[in-house]
């Protein structure tokens, strides 16, 4: 028995239905504990004050924004190579989730930027590349919506996802040309050169796990919906032919 068994919609529906509560409940728990911990129980940073609490939504959202695109890339490839419909539908289901994650990262970043950098928005490389990522999400979703035939739509969006990934990386590199930017590196440190304290790290990790589980739960739920919508389409079409 291979993993591709679950590319069969019926088997996927059975498995995902059983799995969903086991993902959704831990997701809710981790998010609730992590966010409450982060918001209520962490001390203010000596330099950033209470704004440091934003990190508990900002960083997990930013991570999931990138990971969601990566997942779409993988599922698109699976669709193109092995033509498993569930894979294409999972990519379609993940896109709006990824877009919202990107939006959360952008908004929390903007809100954070106002007190820290004195501006809502700066054309910093990392911020800019996130904005471009958001545009890729919009284009990807719009293409899915615009193509009536599901199989054609799956093919086209997969090709777009592939080509788009390459260009997203190129853009990330291109914006670095301006300057190194205001934004922190990926060192998990709040202030440069200073390891992040455990008081922040633990709730942050918890939030990351929560966001990741939430992402999985939402993708499962939405994939199930997409599969059912496809079935509705197929049944209606068959009914008409009778």
């Amino acid at each position, binding site marked *: 028995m291979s993993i591709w068994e679950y590319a069969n919609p019926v088997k996927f529906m059975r498995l995902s239905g059983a799995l969903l509560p086991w993902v959704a409940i831990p997701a809710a728990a981790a998010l609730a504990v992590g*966010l409450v911990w982060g*918001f*209520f129980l962490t001390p*203010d940073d000596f330099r950033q*004050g*209470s*704004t440091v*609490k*934003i990190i508990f*939504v*900002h960083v997990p*959202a930013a991570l999931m924004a990138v990971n969601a695109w990566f997942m779409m890339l993988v599922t698109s490839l699976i669709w193109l190579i092995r033509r498993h419909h569930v894979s294409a539908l999972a990519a379609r289901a993940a896109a*709006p*989730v990824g877009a*919202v994650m990107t*939006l*959360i990262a952008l*908004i*929390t970043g903007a*809100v*954070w930027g*106002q*007190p820290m950098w004195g501006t809502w928005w700066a054309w910093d490389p990392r911020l800019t590349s996130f904005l471009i990522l958001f545009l890729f999400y919009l284009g990807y979703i719009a293409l899915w919506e615009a193509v009536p035939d599901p199989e054609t739509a799956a093919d086209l969006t997969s090709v777009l996802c592939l080509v788009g990934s390459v260009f997203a990386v190129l853009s990330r590199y291109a914006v670095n040309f301006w300057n190194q930017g205001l934004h922190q590196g990926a060192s998990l440190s709040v202030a440069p050169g200073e390891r992040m304290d455990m008081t922040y790290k633990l709730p942050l990790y918890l939030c990351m796990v929560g966001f990741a589980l*939430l992402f999985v739960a*939402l993708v499962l*739920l*939405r994939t*199930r*919906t997409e599969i*059912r*919508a496809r*079935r*509705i389409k197929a*049944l*209606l079409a068959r*009914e008409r032919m*009778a």
Partner: protein
Amino acid sequence: MMPDLGKYAVAVLLAYGASLVLLAGLVWASIRRGARVRAQLHTIEARRSAAAAQPPAATDATQGKGARVHG
């Protein structure tokens, strides 16, 4: 209860508020569309099994019309 957020209260609350609203909206939209699509699927499947259970009357009425043109 509420922690003292100091002079950055607005920023922090705004960030958490916006994130929670967006997340809740996404979850709500996903669940609602899921429920709707599921209900729609159930009505269609019920209709189909009803039609399959008693073929004579129901299907002839619908198929007869199609057959006239296409025949």
